[in-house]
């Protein structure tokens, strides 16, 4: 399964499915990451985690571990 974690910096992908449950899943969706949303991976923090992504025209930081619940398709 390809997740957001696997999308390299500078590339973008589309959300196929959101796994997980509860607060984390809801939070991710509340921030605008829903099925079919395109996510662009902008950069990785200097210490290797978290990553910065662009979604719906704004910048979002997400930990790699949290990014794993997002099943993706590379664009």
């Amino acid at each position, binding site marked *: 399964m390809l997740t957001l974690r696997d999308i390299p910096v500078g590339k973008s992908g589309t959300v196929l499915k959101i796994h997980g449950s509860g607060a984390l899943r*809801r939070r*991710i969706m*509340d*921030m605008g990451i*829903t099925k079919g949303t395109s996510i662009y991976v902008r950069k990785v923090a*200097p210490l290797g985690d978290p990553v*910065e992504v*662009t979604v719906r025209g704004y*910048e979002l930081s*997400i930990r790699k571990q949290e990014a794993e619940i997002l099943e993706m398709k590379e664009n």
Partner: protein
Amino acid sequence: MAVKIALAGNPNCGKTTLFNDLTGSTQYVGNWPGVTVEKKEGRLKGHHDVIIEDLPGIYSLSPYSMEEVVSRNYLVNEKPDVILNIIDGTNIERNLYLTTQLIEIGLPMVIAINMMDLVVKNGDVINITKLSQELGCRIIEISALKGQSTMEAAQLCLEAAKEGRQVEPPHVFTGSVEHAIAHIEESIQDKVDPLNLRWYAVKVFERDEKAMGPLHLDRVTKKHIDDHIKDCEKEMDDEAESIITNQRYDYIQALTARCVKKKRSMHEMTTSDKIDRIVTNRILALPIFALIMWAVYFFSVTTLGSYLTDWTNDVLFGTWITNGATAGLTALGASDAVISLLVDGIIGGVGTVLGFVPQMILLFFCLSILEDSGYMVRVAFIMDRIFRRFGLSGKSFIPMLVGTGCGVPAIMASRTIENEKDRRMTIMLSTFLPCGAKMEIVAMMTMVLFPGSMFVAPAMYFVGLGIVVFSGIALKKTKYFSGDPAPFVMELPAYHLPTIKGILTHVWERAKAFIIKAGTIIFAMCIVMWFLMHFGPSGFLADDIDRSFLRYIGEVFAWLFKPLGLGFWQGAVASISAEVAKEQATATLGMLAHATSDSNAAVAAAINTMFGGSKLVGMSFLLFNIFDAPCMVAIATAFREQGTRKWGWITMGYQMMIGYCLAMCTYQIGMLVSEGVFNGATAAAIVLVILAIYFIFRPNPYSEKRMARKASMARA
């Protein structure tokens, strides 16, 4: 009749700026009942009967965060007359997500699209008329920063409040979802205020237990509704909560496609992007970060800050006011006791506390710039990796750094951490890093124990850091702090130039809270301490601490300090006075040891004699006073920031325990190694060390896996 306007919007949408602009200086800051979420209220400028309630900045009305629960409870239960929803025009899609939820509550609503100056600059066009028709609310374009159209927005709110809600809400949901929600509306309509019908219906569909509580649905209705929801879930192959979120965003996407024309393509670089490319660059980020932190620290803690604090303490309170008051009181013929109370007790005590104010103002000035410009979230972004390991988040970095200067602003800086668990833990731990005042104890004890050594001070920082790491790991395995780490899904807002007005408001708000505390609780405690120090069974004593009540209190509590090797009244008294102000401990020790002169060497020699020449006793005293609870000002601040008494006591208790155990283990095990002394206390110390190791390595009893296994075993 008074009108209540509730201000709602996403974080970073300019809500605070608008609130400040509308209310001016009539703000009242408190907490929402029962929780430590800040509650701000003010009156509309020029309208004494219009109250503006500033809700916390939120992205949604989900049941998962305290800010969101507080906001929705307020809107649904208290029913303000009108909601003013602020939207960041440069980020309209995500901002409208909250709007679709606010509309469902059923209250009259006005939308203010903020940052219009930036929208125009970007070349984007928003069709307000169309958007207003579709959403069924009045919409106005404003710029809160420049004060454009803000009063007009408030005026619109007053009109909307007068009219009440008339328009049909927009059709956000489609197909079987709308069908199911309509069904739910039918089944619950006699249970709720017709105004809130849609809101409750959607919440029931989402299976939001917290919101459904007041409905008291019976089993049959529940079952009936649940069948509808399950059908829907089956059809959409998703769970109800996600179906709702998905449809909301689908609706918004279609809506913005009709009403908003963006000029710039998605991946074009803005100025903010260009700044960010350098500031959080893989190679440059850490050096730039270190430089900024050093600059903040250098400016507000060491150079200008300590100069101002020294000046306030030594010159303003120490000389001018003290001398003035003494002279004035003497002229009035006041007795020695009265002069001593007013000058030494109150002016001296409160003065020491107020001495922190200039330093704090400078520090908050710097921090506000970082916060308002958008750099603070980048700090969290950069440092998260390290802090997550100890169960904290990147946002805990600033309080820890500030803590090396002074614990009071450190605890107050933890306000920016939204997650309650993270914030509570940060408040508990940020004062373990030795502050400036504790360094005076370190300096004095270095002279007593290891004259000329350069390593004691750095060693104390490392021990402090070790305690933070240990506590993070150990506390994370307790019932309260365990559980999934708070999601770190955080918006990185665009950089913008902070305004002087915004920063000054910030600084004033924080300083005011502190000054009020100094004026009340600390004032009272100063009088008590003064009395205990200057009175004894024989009445008023000028400077004879040996015969004071404090001495007898020291005698009473000395047994408590026995396991630390400090089982004599002077040790207890010095530790108690260190709680008033950490730097006070050295002065008290000097006084207790009856040093022959004021020179540092003489004081050190006298202290050494008092400690019986034992380095272990000295070490124990040092460790206890550096790593136990901070001074009473910081303790009072922690009580305030923790929000509840219970958490105030937990914080103080934990800190006392750590300081005590550390000193005890050092002393007892040291005695065992150097002198071969073994007794009950030694055994206890060894047990404590084993326990500490156990707390680090034990598997988390509250981890989800173990909980699940336990539950399955119970079932079997």
